[in-house]
């Protein structure tokens, strides 16, 4: 529950004849996490080397590459193929041998043709672009080149030009400057070019075409049209191939990638001339299954044994072992870092606390329902992506919690609901002076602030959030104590355990000292305790004693850690964001309602006119805009802040992370049958 799945380390040894059956069986079971064999001269593995891939791996890989290239040309992937009948492996094998080469050839031909056409289109487009300046040219293009004694220069220049050498100039005005074509004697070309530089000439190549530029452009446009028609036709052909073979391609991709993975498995094994050995991890509950199945697959010619594990801290891969409702939060754990094998896995606690924090922040029936509908709607969109499904599930839980808190806070889109808030209220007064009685009554009529009394619950709410912080952080330290007890060794272990106790003592010591001096709502009031010395009462002195004891315990582990002591206060105060961020979203909602309804819509409704109706529509738009914005902010704030409270304030107290992901050898087949 709060621990990852228990793992056992297995050693499998057999003669090389059994390599095939063992790999096939392990792949089929999909529970064995292979420890890759690394040649580093261990004594027990003397004479063993990394194995060679099974025969046929290269052929399979080649076919797989072919299929993947076709798939990428078609833009199809496993996720885009809808659920269908699973193909049998033998059938697929036959078709890969018989049909695949022909399909690949067809697709390649079509693709090559398409690419050729597309590059021609691009070339023609470039030529049209080059012809554009010459559309009004005074002479056909063939007359502008190929003379023995005369050269033509074309280009864009700034301002009218004026050269010292004899020349003939044709000029065309345009917005960006003048386009000129000029004819000069060959002997004058270099002088002319030099002088043209003064006019900032950007030379343009004269296209080697015949006839007028307009005519040439028209011809190219026709060609492009034809090519585009052919490209469309090719695409239709490819589309028909795609729809015909899509399922075959994707299921054989799955089949072949499974085959390749199996064929390459020996690269992770230790092999000698006649035998092979492989170590790996399986969930302890399934270890006997591995024994039995391998025995059956190799007719008893395999040796499987469970190995002793020396250091549980580092080695085993980690697989979560949580009840179903906590699965979505594992996403947040992986986002941070997977827990190590021996440490506490906080995903279950997070699955409970995270939605509560989200609800406390958002706490609005209206927004909660909007998010709930969004979560349910998104479910079909993220099908196929595990992380997406997890995220949507978290959103669903959070929005349900927001609705529950909304009912308790009596809030929907910033309006109060027709009942009093349960226990604490966070209704605030927007758009009126909080002190004057009539104003409050007027506001209450608009459903905004129900009474002056409710306004004053905000300090209590802040204290409530501080309580959440104190408990959360104390729990974090207690878990830190437990992790130190299990994961550390020797002298360091006890120091670390004491230090965790020290942190708890310092925090509670500060708290008791504060209680001894100031009465705070929702917290014990110890300020009435009798005075002892120097004007300090018993509670204050007890608090200081506990604090100092805690400091000593912290300093014993590491004196420098004392510098971190002020973070206790900032960490606890950080939890006030649960209320502060929530209040800001309440305020935005109320302001939106005030602007849209009280300032725009209501005055117009009293005196309906045409302008008034336009203004009312405008008011409705302002209402929708404000609440859409606030929903987005609520989602972002409600999601990010609890996440940060977990990552920064909570995890830093105990969590180490860095566990290896449990990645069993095998695959989940979607489109093919199990062999």
């Amino acid at each position, binding site marked *: 529950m709060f621990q990852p799945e228990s793992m056992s380390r297995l050693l499998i040894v057999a003669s090389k004849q059994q390599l095939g059956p063992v790999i096939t069986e392990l792949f089929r079971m999909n529970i064995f996490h292979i420890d890759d064999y690394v040649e580093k001269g261990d004594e027990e593995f003397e004479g063993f080397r990394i194995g060679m891939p099974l025969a046929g791996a290269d052929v399979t890989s080649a076919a797989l590459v072919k299929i993947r290239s076709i798939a990428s040309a078609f833009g199809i992937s496993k996720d885009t193929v809808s659920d269908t009948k699973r193909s049998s492996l033998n059938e697929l094998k036959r078709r890969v041998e018989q049909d695949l080469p022909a399909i690949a050839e067809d697709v390649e031909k079509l693709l090559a043709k398409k690419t050729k056409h597309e590059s021609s289109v691009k070339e023609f487009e470039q030529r049209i672009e080059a012809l554009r300046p010459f559309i009004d040219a005074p002479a056909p293009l063939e007359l502008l080149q190929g003379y023995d004694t005369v050269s033509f220069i074309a280009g864009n220049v700034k301002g009218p030009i004026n050269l010292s050498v004899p020349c003939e100039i044709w000029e065309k005005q345009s917005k960006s400057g003048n386009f000129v074509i000029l004819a000069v004697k060959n002997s004058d070309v270099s002088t002319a070019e030099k002088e043209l530089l003064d006019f900032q000439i950007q030379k343009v190549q004269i296209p080697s075409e015949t006839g007028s530029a307009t005519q040439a452009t028209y011809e190219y446009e026709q060609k492009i049209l034809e090519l585009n028609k052919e490209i469309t036709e090719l695409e239709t052909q490819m589309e028909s191939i795609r729809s015909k073979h899509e399922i075959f391609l994707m299921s054989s991709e799955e089949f072949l990638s499974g085959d390749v993975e199996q064929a390459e498995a020996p690269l992770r094994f230790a092999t000698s001339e006649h035998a092979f050995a492989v170590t790996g991890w399986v969930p302890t509950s399934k270890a006997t299954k591995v024994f039995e199945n391998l025995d059956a697959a190799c007719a008893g010619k395999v040796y499987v044994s469970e190995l002793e594990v020396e250091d549980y801290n580092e080695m085993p891969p980690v697989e979560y072992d949580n009840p179903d409702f906590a699965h979505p939060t594992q996403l947040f754990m992986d*986002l*941070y870092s997977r827990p190590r094998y021996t440490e506490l896995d906080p995903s279950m606690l997070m699955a409970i606390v995270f939605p509560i924090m989200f609800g406390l922040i958002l706490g609005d029936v209206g927004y909660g329902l909007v998010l709930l509908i969004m979560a349910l709607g998104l479910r079909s969109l993220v099908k196929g992506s595990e992380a997406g499904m997890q995220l949507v599930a978290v959103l669903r839980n959070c929005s349900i919690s927001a609705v529950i808190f909304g009912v308790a806070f009596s809030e929907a889109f910033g309006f109060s609901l027709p009942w009093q808030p349960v226990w604490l209220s966070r209704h*605030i007064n927007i758009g009126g*002076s909080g*002190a004057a009685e009539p104003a409050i009554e007027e506001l209450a009529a608009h459903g905004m602030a129900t009474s002056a009394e409710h*306004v*004053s619950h*905000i*300090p209590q709410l*802040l204290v409530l959030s501080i309580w959440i912080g104190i408990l959360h952080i104390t729990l974090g330290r207690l878990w830190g104590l437990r992790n130190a007890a299990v994961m550390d060794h020797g002298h360091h272990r006890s120091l670390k355990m004491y230090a965790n106790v020290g942190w708890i003592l310092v925090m509670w010591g500060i708290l008791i000292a504060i209680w001894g001096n100031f009465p705070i709502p929702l917290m014990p009031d110890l300020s009435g305790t009798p005075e002892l010395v120097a004007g300090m009462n018993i509670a204050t002195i007890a608090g200081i004693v506990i604090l100092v004891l805690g400091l000593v315990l912290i300093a014993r582990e590491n004196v420098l850690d004392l510098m971190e002591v002020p973070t206790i206060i*900032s960490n606890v*105060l*950080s939890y*006030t*964001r649960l*209320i*502060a*961020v929530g*209040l*800001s979203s309440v305020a935005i909602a109320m302001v939106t309602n005030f602007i849209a309804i009280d300032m725009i819509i209501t005055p117009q409704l009293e005196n309906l006119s045409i302008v008034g109706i336009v203004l009312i529509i405008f008011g409705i738009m302002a209402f929708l805009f404000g609440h859409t914005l606030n929903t987005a902010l609520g989602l972002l704030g409600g999601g*990010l*802040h609890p*996440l*940060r409270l977990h*990552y*920064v304030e909570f995890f830093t107290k105990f969590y180490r992370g860095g566990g290896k992901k449990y990645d069993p050898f095998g695959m989940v087949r979607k489109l093919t049958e199990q062999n």
Partner: protein
Amino acid sequence: MAAEIMTVEVAQASAAGMKAIGAGLAVGLSGFGAGIGEMGIGAAAMGAVAENKDMFGIALLFTVLPETIVIFGLVVALLLMFQ
């Protein structure tokens, strides 16, 4: 001049106004602080995420770290306004 028209109501109203100004300053200035803090972190975080998408979670976390300052400002403002 001011002393002549100063009544109890005016004094109360101006005290309330001062409170409101204080609350506004608390949120506004702490917002500036957090913004300046997040500026560098955010830029670096974008760089890190561009290099390695897996960094997104941690990058986001680091980026919102200075936000605590605003929260403190907001809490001070709330206490000013509602206590």
